[in-house]
């Protein structure tokens, strides 16, 4: 069985998970900027960001 490189439980595991998640606040990349621009264009064309299904 493979040996885990992280703690198995408890406080140590919790701290380890927090450590893995530290890369959160990254700036938007080009794909994301492009998608956001596309969304705004769609909403502007329709005159609202709201859709009815």
């Amino acid at each position, binding site marked *: *069985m*493979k040996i*885990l*490189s*992280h703690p198995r439980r*408890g*406080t140590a*595991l*919790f*701290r380890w*998970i927090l450590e*893995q*998640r530290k890369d*959160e606040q990254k700036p*938007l*990349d080009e*794909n*994301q900027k*492009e*998608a*956001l621009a*596309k*969304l*705004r264009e*769609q*909403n502007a064309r*329709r005159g*609202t*960001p*709201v*859709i*009815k*299904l």
Partner: protein
Amino acid sequence: MKIKKRHSPNFANKTPVVEHQSLSYNFVFAGSSSNSYFFETRHGVVYEVKFKPSGYIFENLPALSENTFEFVIEIAENRSGNQLPTDGLIPLTIARIFFDFFREKEKLVVYICDSSDARQAVRYRKFSAWYEHYQTDNLLKIDIRLSA
């Protein structure tokens, strides 16, 4: 920490009826490394909903680790100022994004109730309420409490 799992392979055909009767926000899938979705509210707040690959959680279980994602909701832009207005369209929008992401194949989604601002209980209650409201037979939620 909560884990959601899709069981049925035909999940795409099982979206809740309520989705088809209500208003929500238009959204786009931006992809990238964190599987980002974006939507903008009528108050000018842009939300980014991410499904970050999180195989590290099940690193000794390859079958699970490659389909494990952390569910993250972030504010990408807020043109309305610091105060976020109450917005009844957000829950259904996020539910639709969630179902959209689950369409392709069986996945595990891990939602961590961030405790850095001591609001983890609020996040837990909100997530649980959304789960109860939008759940189908194809979702299973498992709650795990981690103490530091």
